[in-house]
């Protein structure tokens, strides 16, 4: 009896420790993401100055009491610009991930469910997209589509489609092996109803977790495109184009490069930790192993 009790207790302690470790990841990730998302939403309220106000008299000032993170080469407040840049990053990432999630989800579910030649054609096309390095593909797409924020969203979204489609296809095939799909056929459910009622609810969790991880990557890709001058166009602030400008002033005004770099670090790290934390919480296989 006492042995049993002790075992149970140890079991409980072990569990809660694992839970805490996971929860901590989720918590840190959530805080960082919250910081970025809130800055994006309330940028106009919290930023001390307008991100566009030029005052050459105070250009390239190091961080001081009036401008906490200094000013750039046109005397614009860096803090205000970095806050407004969060807005671009979050907006681009949200739209791009949605494009990837919906596009990849539809393609993957169709390939997994219908199989055969449909699967063959769709997945070979996905592999074709997958075989290009992401940033190269983005540059090509931007070159074709033209330079704008909207096109950056589309290009990044297209890059995400193959990954989501593979995940959705694998998850769909997994669900198809379950007997409730056969049961659905015996009661006469249509393909559309089986897809929406039986399959979709059972594959949505891994897709959402993947979406969180993709968010981090989208932030990075958007910054890369902007850094190369293909994303947000000056004077609109973006972490990428701020970093690009800062590069030229690295020895005179290092804060111009360091600040947007740190912002990217916070954003990417936050979305990654949140994604990992969510995966741990939702993945039943990991849950059982604990």
């Amino acid at each position, binding site marked *: 009896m006492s042995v049993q009790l002790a075992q149970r207790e140890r079991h409980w302690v072990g569990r809660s420790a694992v839970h805490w470790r996971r929860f901590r990841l989720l918590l840190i990730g959530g805080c960082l993401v919250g910081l970025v998302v809130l800055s994006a939403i309330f940028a106009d309220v919290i930023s001390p100055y307008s991100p566009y106000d030029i005052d050459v008299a105070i250009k390239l000032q190091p961080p001081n009491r009036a401008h906490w993170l200094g000013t750039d080469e046109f005397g614009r407040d860096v803090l205000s610009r970095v806050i407004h840049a969060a807005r671009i990053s979050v907006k681009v990432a949200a739209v791009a991930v949605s494009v990837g999630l919906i596009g990849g989800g539809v393609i993957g579910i169709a390939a997994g469910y219908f199989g055969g030649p449909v699967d063959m054609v769709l997945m070979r096309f996905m592999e074709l997209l997958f075989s290009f390095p992401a940033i190269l593909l983005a540059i090509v797409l931007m070159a074709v589509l033209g330079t704008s924020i909207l096109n950056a969203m589309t290009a990044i979204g297209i890059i995400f489609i193959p990954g989501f489609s593979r995940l959705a296809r694998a998850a769909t095939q997994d669900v198809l092996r*379950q*007997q*409730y799909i*056969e*049961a659905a056929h*015996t*009661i*006469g459910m249509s393909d559309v109803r089986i897809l929406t*009622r039986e399959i979709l609810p059972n594959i949505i969790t891994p897709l959402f977790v993947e979406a969180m991880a993709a968010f981090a990557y989208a932030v990075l890709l958007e910054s890369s495109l902007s850094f190369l001058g293909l994303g947000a166009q000056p004077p609109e602030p973006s972490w990428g184009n701020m970093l690009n400008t800062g590069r030229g002033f690295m020895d005179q005004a290092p804060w111009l490069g360091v600040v947007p770099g740190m912002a990217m670090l916070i954003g990417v790290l936050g979305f990654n930790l949140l994604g990992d934390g969510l995966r741990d919480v939702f993945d039943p296989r990991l849950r059982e192993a604990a």
Partner: protein
Amino acid sequence: MTLLDARGLVKYFPVTAGLLRRRVGDVKAVDGVSLAIEEGTTLALVGETGSGKTTLGRLLTRLLTPTNGQIVFEGRDITGLDEQALRPVRRQMQMVFQNPASSLNPRRRVKEIIEEPLVVHGIGTPVARLRQVRELLERVALPPRDFLFRYPHALSGGQRQRVAIARALALHPRLIVLDEPTSALDVSVQAKIIGLLRRLQRELRLTYLFISHDLSLVRNVAESIAVMYLGKIVELAAAERLFTSPSHPYTRALLSAIPTVSDEEAALIPEKIVLRGEIPSPSRVPPGCAFHPRCYARIDGCDRVVPELITLGDGHAARCILYDPALGAPGLPNVIARRE
């Protein structure tokens, strides 16, 4: 009246190889099966894993399309019907699956699961459907108040199987295919589910096709039994007759393998027969009689002649050359035990 009549059913699954998916062979899952089920009775389909019994069940409910043969249900040929034309037929034939853990969608509540067939077939208003779901739950002895809004993971194995049975009953089918409905359950729960199925059969005049690998279980539920081996029916008889005078060497071996707990029981079954080896793969069926490599009563010719199903009278038939009148129908030798 014959409710379901299958004639010469064949299902081959192609085996492909290489980049071009060249067809290199077939898995002969079901190879020429004919059987009939009388309304209100239970036909048991017994066989080892890989004997094709599950595939046969899927063919009869048209979850799979046969490679050859004919299925007549309620006097109507349903072999070539497409999914659209099958919908009204599906109302009449339902299925209960082996593993209740995977036959219920984990994301839907009990109410939705049982209601789904009614929704799909556009039966009733939401209020009327809820009443029906409650009645169905009561029929399978689950108090609606406690179970309506639960998820499958909050149910025990037996409770899940009851929900699966309620779902199968929702459309008032005439035929229910039970694919090893109790093999995933504890023995004590098995007995309760069998009891429930028999009660439902009496009350609703249901016809069952009961698929199982357990002969002793089937004895209590079925009027007639078909024994399958490598895609073919090797023996077909009324349940009692199969147990008192098993005629195919394979049936006799199966019967001898039933565990017994008393001397009286042991006296009922023939000598212990231990078969050599395992059931071969249906992709490489032995020539002649498919059973001959494992058969203890094998005679000359078993490896060449494909035996027909030979009628022994009273609806009893066995697929064995030993009953061939042309050979004088020597029958199975009485002492066949070969303890190895």
